[in-house]
């Protein structure tokens, strides 16, 4: 069993003006679903707790019709936005289990999410990063793998329109085994705002401890108004099954 951390404290600046009054994870992708409620329903079948960190427009998360009021949901109110590195440190100190970390702006295929959970259950001591294939011209990060699927390099890049080679890109989902989290001996980093890739990911890669898990189905990261529209349309069309 593992716990899930859904990162939801961001400002959502790329989706202004929608995010002026609603945090990005609480935007509706269908009449009855928000991005967050969908993620919760997908990962609540695993029996662990679901942690949701909140800061920006925290009051909105009290609307249980948009979040759900399941027993397994625990909120973390961050007085200042900590950044995903510090949030991971905070939750790993509180939770006795391994942690699946999911960006709170992802709309995912349900079956593929179930596959991911099964894969983790089969090999719970192996940390992993979920990757998906895309063209370099669209990728914001490039992940290099060795022949066994272990991640050997990870770099964030500027989107460049002329590179049309396919590559693996970071999908915004990570699993950290308890053993690896303990061996990293995470510390709070100041100034706040440091993300996971700055230390945790790089450390695990340097120790050759980070396996890749390939995401072979639909997935939309809601990083623009266009992406939100696209995810809503795909949901109506029956994608994300």
């Amino acid at each position: 069993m593992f716990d899930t951390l859904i990162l939801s404290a961001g400002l959502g600046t790329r989706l202004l003006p929608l995010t002026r009054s609603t945090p990005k994870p609480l935007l509706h992708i269908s009449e009855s679903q928000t991005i967050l409620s969908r993620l919760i329903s997908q990962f609540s079948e695993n029996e662990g707790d679901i942690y949701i960190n909140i800061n920006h427009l925290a009051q909105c998360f009290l609307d249980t019709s948009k979040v759900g009021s399941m027993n397994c949901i625990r909120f973390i109110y961050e007085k200042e936005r900590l950044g995903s590195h510090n949030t991971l440190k905070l939750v790993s100190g509180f939770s006795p289990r391994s942690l699946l970390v999911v960006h709170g702006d992802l709309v995912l295929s349900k079956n593929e999410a179930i596959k991911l959970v099964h894969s983790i259950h089969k090999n719970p001591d192996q940390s992993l990063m979920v990757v998906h294939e895309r063209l370099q011209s669209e990728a914001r990060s490039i992940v290099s793998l060795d022949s066994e699927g272990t991640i050997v390099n990870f770099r964030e890049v500027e989107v460049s329109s002329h590179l049309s080679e396919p590559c693996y890109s970071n999908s915004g989902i990570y699993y950290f085994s308890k053993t690896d989290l303990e061996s990293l001996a995470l510390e709070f980093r100041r100034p706040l705002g440091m993300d996971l890739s700055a230390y945790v990911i790089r450390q695990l890669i340097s120790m050759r401890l980070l396996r890749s898990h390939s995401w072979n189905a639909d997935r939309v990261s809601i990083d623009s108004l266009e992406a939100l529209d696209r995810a809503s349309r795909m949901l109506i069309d029956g994608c994300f099954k």
Partner: protein
Amino acid sequence: MKHYRLENHILYIRRWLRFRKNLLLFKKQKRSALFLDIDGTIWPDSGPGSLVNGKVVRPEINSYILKLKREFDFFVLVTNQTYFSRKAQHDRNEIETYFHNACELAKNLGVDLVLSCPHHPDAQNNALRKNCDFRKPNPGMFRFAIKLLNLDQDTCVVVGDRITDIIASAEAKINNNFLLVNPKAFQLNISKPTNIEVGVFFRIVNSLEDVIYMLGRQ
């Protein structure tokens, strides 16, 4: 005539807890406690002065509280009460009513200890103008109860309707916290920066009934 001291943070303590020899009985074993806020938790929040005006707990809330407190060794109420700090002068009759109502409430609900903080950093009244460690989100009330009753923080539960309740209890190392849905829950009224630099953990509930359900499912 009884002399009531407004600055006293103990509004009520069960009679048998008043004796030192009885308190020493708890030193051998750590105990559990249920902490509830008053305004917005056991009755709707209608501004300062609820204890002076003598509000009544609704029967269904009363029954939830009875069910909840069965699971704990002690039942403690913790509340900020700024009614008197908003007035330049004290009215003796009001103070008497305030203590009387707190005692009646405690007896009706079977409370062991009622802690309150009448202080406010911007009080009109000189005697109550203070950055008090007992005023939530500072952890003084929780720490006081933990020490007095020899409580084990891991088995304590706190229910409040403001994030300041949760910050105060988290700072006293209680992590089993429930935040009742309230439109003003995140209106921070922090009198001084707290030591919580990072984050506090809590679960969201719509009513005390949800707390019973969630504790049952733990």
